[in-house]
């Protein structure tokens, strides 16, 4: 009983457990899983990333030219990183950044 009373009083002066967001930023851990980024110059158009993506967030749209057009939907993406692991040109053509999607 006495112990809990002391604890209750000390809690009045203890540091807050929560973060004063947005004035204080939430610390991000290293290697946070963020948006998938792509570079068409390096891509060899093997379409492996499209095939493995569970929610179909990466789609290659047919165009009039030879190569298809890469389209990525960040709102469908579950950030599993499976596409990057399967890409033969990992880190050059496709890589996982630490960025967040834009809030529309």
């Amino acid at each position, binding site marked *: 009983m006495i112990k*809990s009373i002391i604890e209750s009083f000390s809690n009045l002066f203890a540091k807050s*457990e929560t973060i004063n967001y947005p004035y204080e930023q939430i610390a991000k*851990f*290293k*290697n*946070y*899983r963020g948006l998938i980024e792509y570079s068409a110059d390096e891509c060899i158009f093997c379409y492996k990333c499209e095939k*493995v993506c*569970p929610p179909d967030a990466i789609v290659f749209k047919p165009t009039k030219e030879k190569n298809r057009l890469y389209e990525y939907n960040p709102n469908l993406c*579950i*950030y*599993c*990183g*499976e596409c990057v*692991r399967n890409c033969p040109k990992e880190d050059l053509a496709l890589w996982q950044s630490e960025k967040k999607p834009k809030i529309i």
Partner: protein
Amino acid sequence: MKKTITIPLGSQHISLLEPVRFNFSCENEKITDVDYNVGFVHRGIEKACTEKFEYKQVGYVVARVCGLCAITHTMAYTLGIEHILNIKTNKKIDYLRILMLELDRIHSHLLCLAHTAENSGFEGMFMKIMGDRELVMDIQEAISGNRVQFDFVCIGGVNRDISTECEKLAFTNLALLDKKVDDLIGKFTSNWSTALKYKNIGALSYDDAFNFNALGPLARAAGAAIDVRAESSILPYKEVGYKMILGQNGDIYDRNLVRLKEIKNSILMCQNILSGLTEGEILVKFKGKPNGESFTRLEAPRGEIFYYLNANGTNMLQRVRIKTPTFSQIPGMVEIFKGSDYADAPAILASFDPCMSCTAK
């Protein structure tokens, strides 16, 4: 004059975390009969796993069965498909997998304790435990790169290795949490609101634990030694310091204590793993398509989960059957409710730690 009155609890109710509906038939304050409906969040996951997603993607789909034991579901599926594909993983992979499973158990048990405290009217304790839970969530986030859906396990291994920084963070946080859990054990044994008033409330006897197919902490609190971690050797639990924790009376008080002691045991296991982790590959290469069937059992935070997989040599599986712990525990729950006071129903319910999205999937 009619003697019993029927009081519904759910499908939306302030003390319920998830949509489930109970119809309590009460005589005065006592519950005499219970009717239930658990199918409010059916999402057709089993069907999707066989029709829409290929076997390599299913691991990511079943992780969405449950937000709390996401890692356990993926793990059970992965172990099953690895059995069919005949993939042998190395020690390092097994250890990393156990590490994530146990971290999952810690945060799931803490959440349950927090809700038990909240449903017994102790809001401050709820906040405090949820605050402590952040320590584990941080470790998981640092290791897997995500806070809730970890997507850490994949067929043949794990997706990420653990860095020295993560290891350091894990050691610090686990040591801190260990002290906090000791403190919580004190509160859950001596405080009136969270502990003493729940002695002999919502009790399940040792025999009934077997008769009604109780699993997980619900069974272990009643003294029944039911734990897949002790029964199966699919993951090397014995090497990392697993210990069976048993209660005596099977009441809410015992269930809370069993959970707290299991957290302590899990912390010890995590520390053992982190200090004994060797260098090695985190992914085993494999070829071929699955052909055959497998049954996998794994101890989730709430009890045993069971996966049946059937593959026919194509990219699509033929059947994925998931049996979750809450589903098996419903007969036990109904039995406990009968004869209890209606006023205790929310606290009893929270102490089961039911997971309805898992059950309805």
